[in-house]
């Protein structure tokens, strides 16, 4: 087919068609990047709705559901229910350990009282726990904490050689030239030995230095005080059980503490070189219990050791939610079991208020759709409610108690998910304009090509090419250009999307080498410009100087960006998540590519029709 031959040659021998290919590629890549990030965002929103939540949520805020243990049992008896667990949600103030001094910071938190084992069955709680072991930079602080709080125990465990070593280590001048025996004797007889200070000094040099200086008895004493310094994963277990040092503890979201920052490689950086690692400290949780009539009761405060931190990946959650044992929350919200007394005679107990939970979270077996699960939960709940209907404090009934909700996680998060869905739709609609842009570019570029090829078209007609044959040339040409452009665009879109994290990090902490590279390129262009300038050619000179100015401007931009501390486009506090989505939405990518091809071919038909209408006699008349 001669059209194919011509298309092929036109493509290879001209710059203009490459321009068209680039235009299509850029359009396609732009849509792919934007829509992929949006889709990824939506996916994250949706799947995040599920983390730390389960598939179906029964909720009855404030007053809570009584006999929830029975409800959980009934739910778990059903074969499509994998697990169920109660929880209480309330609000509170968390007094942080920082800053130094008396005036501490407080943050508003959403408190979830949970049964950690059950909660871990229903949600991905365990996987979300941040610390398996204390991070390296924290260990020294933990060691110093132990020395501070348990100095006497440690000093009691010191043996002679360790004392001698400590002395030698902390006051080398005073023992200069003495034998080992002499030093040991001196160490034992020391007037004011200040062993705790000496231990601190060694500890400051690091755990390894400390460990190699002290005797085993001292180290065992240290590990006994803080097992997190020893073997195993006591930090993780503390989070999993909500217990630290034998006390009930709290697990806070990674961004509840201002001390945690995201590092340039996505790692968590703890302020003051690990000093403000929250699981070192206790925090104070204060809640305002609300009574059955909605009145506010006395505030309740409780001091809790931080057992661990968690990261659900959803900024909004990681920034506000904390987990504590359910019985603690029941206590402070007055949802615990209580005796019911005769109002006329407070000494007569007429019954008990059972403990209550404001939520029961349910996880279905793998493959069970949340909507199907919700149907089952509805039915089980009704049975449960009627079974306890005659009790003194009956559970709320569906249809009768407006506050009661049995929802899938999607429904529960609808207010959160729906706007993102709408946004994505809006984006998709707005970006379908890209087809128009693509088409317009093709029309303009092809129009110019037809103009340039007028004589050739006349020649083809003179040797017998029908109009349809001429139309075919340009349609084919449009097809080839747009397919090449789409493929390149998909490639570019894929590259940018999958590297969006590094690109983003590059922007927020720009490296210097591109600046030097660009300045080099600018200088090279300048030199080239001076050389070609002698030939007095306008276009290369102009393009060269534009490129040079652009190179240097971008280089200066990079340097300025560095100076100003980088640019953060994806601010996690604005976008809920601490990572930019980097998965290509292939369905959208393919649709976009095909759409661009269709738009281009349709657009190409306009200049193609003009080409077919060219009068061969006129086209051939002049050279």
């Amino acid at each position: 087919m001669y059209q194919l031959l011509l298309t092929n040659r036109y493509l290879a021998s001209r710059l203009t068609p490459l321009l068209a290919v680039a235009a299509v590629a850029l359009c396609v890549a732009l849509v792919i990047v934007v829509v992929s990030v949006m889709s990824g965002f939506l996916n994250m929103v949706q799947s995040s709705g599920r983390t730390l939540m389960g598939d179906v949520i029964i909720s009855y805020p404030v007053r809570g559901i009584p006999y929830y243990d029975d409800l959980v049992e009934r739910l778990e008896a059903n074969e499509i229910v994998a697990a169920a667990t109660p929880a209480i949600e309330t609000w509170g103030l968390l007094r942080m350990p920082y800053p130094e001094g008396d005036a501490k910071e407080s943050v508003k938190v959403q408190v979830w009282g949970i049964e950690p084992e059950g909660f871990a069955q229903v949600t991905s709680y365990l996987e979300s726990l941040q610390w398996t072991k204390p991070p390296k930079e924290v260990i020294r602080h933990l060691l110093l904490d132990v020395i501070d709080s348990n100095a006497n125990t440690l000093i009691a465990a010191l043996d002679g050689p360790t004392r001698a070593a400590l002395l030698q280590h902390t006051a080398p001048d005073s023992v200069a030239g003495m034998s080992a025996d002499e030093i040991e004797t001196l160490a034992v007889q020391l007037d004011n030995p200040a062993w705790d200070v000496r231990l601190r000094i060694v500890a400051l040099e690091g755990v390894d230095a400390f460990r190699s200086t002290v005797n085993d008895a001292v180290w065992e004493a240290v590990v006994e005080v803080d097992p997190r310094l020893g073997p195993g994963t006591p930090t993780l277990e503390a989070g999993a059980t909500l217990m630290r040092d034998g006390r009930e503890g709290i697990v806070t979201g990674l961004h509840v503490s201002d001390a945690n920052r995201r590092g340039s490689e996505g790692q968590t950086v703890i302020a003051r070189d690990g000093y403000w690692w929250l699981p070192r400290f206790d925090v104070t949780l204060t809640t305002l219990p609300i009574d059955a009539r909605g009145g506010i009761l006395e505030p309740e405060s409780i001091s809790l050791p931080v057992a661990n931190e968690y990261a659900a990946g959803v900024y909004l959650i990681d920034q506000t939610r904390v987990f504590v044992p359910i019985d603690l929350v029941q206590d402070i919200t007055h949802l615990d079991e209580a005796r019911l007394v005769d109002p006329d005679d407070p000494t007569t107990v007429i019954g008990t208020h059972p403990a209550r939970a404001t939520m029961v979270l349910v996880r279905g077996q793998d493959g069970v759709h949340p909507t199907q699960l919700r149907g089952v939960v509805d039915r089980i709940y009704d049975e449960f409610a009627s079974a306890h209907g005659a009790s003194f404090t009956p559970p709320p009934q569906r249809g009768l108690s407006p506050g009661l909700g049995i929802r899938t996680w999607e429904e529960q998060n609808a207010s959160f998910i729906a706007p993102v869905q709408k946004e994505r739709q809006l984006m998709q609609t707005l970006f379908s304009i890209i087809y128009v842009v693509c088409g317009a570019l093709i029309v303009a570029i092809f129009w110019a090509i037809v103009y340039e090829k007028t004589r050739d078209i006349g020649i083809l007609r003179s040797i017998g090419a029908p109009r349809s044959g001429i139309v075919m040339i340009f349609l084919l040409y449009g097809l080839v250009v747009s397919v090449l452009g789409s493929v390149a665009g998909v490639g570019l879109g894929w590259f940018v999307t999958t590297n969006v994290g590094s690109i983003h990090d590059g922007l927020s902490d720009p490296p210097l080498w591109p600046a030097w590279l660009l300045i080099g390129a600018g200088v090279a262009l300048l030199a080239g410009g001076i050389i070609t300038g002698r030939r007095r050619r306008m276009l290369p000179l102009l393009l060269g100087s534009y490129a040079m100015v652009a190179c240097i401007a971008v280089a200066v931009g990079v340097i300025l960006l560095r100076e100003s501390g980088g640019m953060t486009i994806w601010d996690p506090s604005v976008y809920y998540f601490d990572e930019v989505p980097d998965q290509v939405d292939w369905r959208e990518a393919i649709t976009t590519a095909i759409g661009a091809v269709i738009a281009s071919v349709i657009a190409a038909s306009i200049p193609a029709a003009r080409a077919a209408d060219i009068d061969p006699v006129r086209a051939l008349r002049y050279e």
Partner: protein
Amino acid sequence: MSDLVLSARGLARTYHLDRVDVPVLKDCSLDVEDGEWVAILGASGSGKSTLLHLLGALDRPDAGTVHIGGMELSRASQRQLDRVRAGQVGFVFQFYHLLPELTVLENSMLPAHMPGGVGASEGRRRALDLLERFALGDRLGHRPRELSGGERQRTALARALVNAPRVLLADEPTGNLDATTGAAILDVLSDLHRDGLTMVTVTHDQTIASRADRVLELTGGRLQLDDEAAEGADSKAVVESRRP
């Protein structure tokens, strides 16, 4: 009458400029027999190209008829006209009109791909034969811009002949060439004529006319027998006297 390849009757063609009508052809009639070489002489602007375009089905007359191989062009559909241009006539132009992106071989094969052409494989065979014959056998892969004027015109000639047309229409085929190269092209044309090719050449150059079987003159939009040119010896003497 049976061996008429080309026959035109009462051709008229008027160009319409803004408000002025330019009647270029008024009443042109012409019969070309099989194997005949007809030369049409005319001053620049006399309408020679216009006439050739009408004869070659590239343009439609305002009045008159053209028959090629028994087909009446004014009654023919656009598709039929396309096929006539592809298979029945071969055009050669003053400015060669080769496609710059294609090689010599590809240019000369191009008409074979058209509807009504001889097809790719036959076209290739014929094109190779013709190019060999025109001494372009070692230039097959060259682009037109790498060729001299004479070589370009011989490539154009090969292209015009690749579908074995009934008639070759040549519009000032030597008009853009120096005398020697032009003479070489004329030799090629004479050669083709000897082999039985029917040709109509238009020119303002007596030299071409002198080689033709019959010379017509286009003046005032009409064709008439040219007495002067008919006496070939005389005109040859005129031309030769002009050469340095």
